[in-house]
């Protein structure tokens, strides 16, 4: 009984107190009478203790454990931005792989459970649910460390896609986990796309732009993107357009800049990325004021990291605020279509 109390406690800490009532109703494991017994005006931990005692009273350990795993998955689904997601690409589809299971959560769960049982302990468990066209999976892989959070891995997979998103996992389970996943998906190998962040829809959109599974490269041509959903908004109008009575001295320059940014970035808000990292190894280009700098050809190694709530939008705004000069370099403009947020820039080898 101790095990599913840890899972339930962890699930409760992930969600907000205001969401608890809806989540428990959606969960469907507690009857209406049992839900009426709960007092949601109390603290989260009080509600947790009441829910735990109701689950223990049912006296059905196996079923309760499965249902609580499902509840934890629903909490993650509702608060997906609390996890950092990493995108992996699937390579080399195995011949004869059936795809009928991909839209059925129960079939997918069975397939995944078979692989998990093959490589891991019998106490490993799998939960799957379908939400907004994506399969959400929860894998519990126990290791020597009994910390439940570090033993739990979450996965998001859009059926028939060549990539998936996974939360952080232990290095010790990586080999077996990847083997099991590639068998379950029907592919030979999987590799990291060096693309990670908190907003999974944006990550999938960027991955798809790279994999070419959409018919557009620039986000400007799109009215609604499949992953960004219906909530995708057009950018706010520039200040000079919002206020017709406002006069600006360099209005021509501002309009020209606005047009070129629209050409480069499009009309719509950019996908959400929290960080963008460049590892650079090029010749030193700041030697204008340096008389004694030796030109031995050795590159300068540096690392640049942009961080913020939406870095791609921020890069666009740097130019519009005048903190960056146009045209911006290609490695900043093409992030949308390159499918990664970790880049390596090196000088071209002349030999």
């Amino acid at each position, binding site marked *: 009984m101790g095990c599913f109390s840890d899972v339930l406690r962890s699930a409760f800490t992930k969600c907000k107190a205001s969401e608890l009532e809806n989540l428990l109703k959606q969960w469907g494991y507690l009857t209406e009478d049992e839900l009426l017994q709960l007092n949601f005006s109390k603290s989260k931990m009080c509600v947790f203790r009441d829910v735990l005692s109701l689950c223990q009273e049912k006296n059905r350990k196996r079923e309760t454990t499965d249902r609580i795993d499902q509840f934890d998955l629903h909490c993650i689904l509702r608060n997906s931005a609390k996890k950092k997601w990493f995108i992996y690409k699937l390579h080399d589809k195995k011949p004869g792989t059936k795809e009928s299971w991909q839209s059925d959560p129960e079939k997918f769960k069975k397939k995944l459970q078979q692989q998990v049982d093959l490589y891991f302990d019998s106490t490993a468990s799998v939960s799957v649910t379908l939400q907004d066209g994506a399969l959400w999976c929860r894998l519990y892989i126990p290791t020597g460390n009994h910390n439940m959070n570090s033993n739990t891995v979450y996965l998001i997979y859009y059926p028939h896609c060549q990539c998936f998103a996974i939360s952080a996992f232990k290095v010790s389970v990586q080999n077996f986990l990847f083997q099991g996943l590639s068998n379950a998906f029907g592919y030979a190998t999987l590799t990291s796309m060096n693309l990670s962040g908190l907003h999974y829809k944006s990550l999938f959109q960027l991955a798809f732009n790279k994999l070419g599974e959409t018919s557009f490269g620039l986000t400007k041509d799109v009215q609604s993107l499949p992953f960004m959903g219906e909530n995708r908004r057009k950018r706010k109008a520039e200040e000079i357009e919002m206020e017709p009575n406002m006069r600006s001295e360099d209005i021509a320059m501002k309009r020209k800049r606005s047009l070129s940014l629209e050409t480069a970035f499009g009309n719509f808000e950019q996908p959400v990325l929290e960080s963008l990292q*460049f590892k*650079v190894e*090029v010749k*030193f*280009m*700041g*030697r*204008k*004021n*340096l*008389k*004694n*700098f*030796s030109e031995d050809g*050795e590159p*300068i*190694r*540096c*690392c*640049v*990291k*942009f*961080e*913020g*709530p*939406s*870095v*791609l*939008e*921020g*890069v*666009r*705004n*740097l130019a519009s*605020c*005048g*903190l*960056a*000069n*146009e*045209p*911006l*370099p290609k490695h*900043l403009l093409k992030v949308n279509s390159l499918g990664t947020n970790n880049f390596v*820039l090196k000088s071209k080898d002349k030999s």
Partner: protein
Amino acid sequence: MASRRNSASSSRGMSTPQTSCLLKSRLSQRFTPRRFTPYWRTPQSRRVATAVQSTKGRRKAVPTKSKNGSDSSADSADLKGFIDKTWRVYKLSPLYKFSTAPKDLKRYGQLLSSCVEAANQKITIVESNASGKAFFCVQKELQNSKDDPAAIQILIKGRKATANTDSILLTATLCGVEMEDNLLNPEVKEHFTYYPILLVKSTVALTDVLITWLQRHFDCKISPLIFPPVHLAWMIAMWSGGLANSKRKNKPVELVYQVPSECEGIKKITYSIEADDCLRVWNSIHDTREDIFTEEEMTTFIASMEEHFYSLFRIKLNAMQLSCVGTALCYIGREGLLKIYSAEHVICILRHLTELSVEHFMLNM
């Protein structure tokens, strides 16, 4: 003129009325008895006033080696308690009737302990410790010259609600390292002790308790030592080659720029350069045989780094503010955060912080 100056300095909140005349003001000689007449010739250029006195146009020498010739390598074992901890740096005005005699230090410990106990009972400290016992002791390893006051270490030990054993809840050090001369006037030297810096490692609540107690007991003013971007740039120039001759791999030199809030989406840009490459650039600017760095060298160094960044990304770093800098020796944040990595350079770093604190205090007099 003198009375107007005194009221102005006390109204800034940096010094108490007792301390307003204590320190010898370096600015006192600049004021002339000329009558205020606003009708001057129109200047050919205007200079925008800055919060920190600008050193533009003047050569500012910053020594790198210790005055007594040692690089503190012999004492590095004693100073290991300062490394790999995140300190908050504060500046202080002189402490009234502060004594370093053992019996007085013991009494201070008892008084601070009762203050911590009282704060516990008011539930102002979140950890709800059962006991918070304070200890004051002298730290001799930080006293590098005869003008330095005896450094004092303050420890508060207690037991957290969830723990079974006592642990150190607060570590603080009052010190001034290699102060240029005794800044207190001879007639008040007996009653006041000047510590330019206070380093604290603890929770916010417990730090507030300590600071409030020190301010009340010794009639002083304690405030965070803020490092404006120009000071951070100096530190980068001084310390980026600090461990260059050692065999170990050095941490990269890190500059963190804060993006202005009108540019939504990006909060900060972190620019890290490998220590060896940074040193290569620095050696092409600075003559390695010289012990002192100049302001021109510092600005050239930073400008060349920003120019390299601009050539890669076409982003103007010089339009943004430096908020944190990191070198192999230490990591410093604008809001007074400090983390020292090298025990051999603790004295060097604290000496520089002492100098900054004294300069800041002099400017506010």
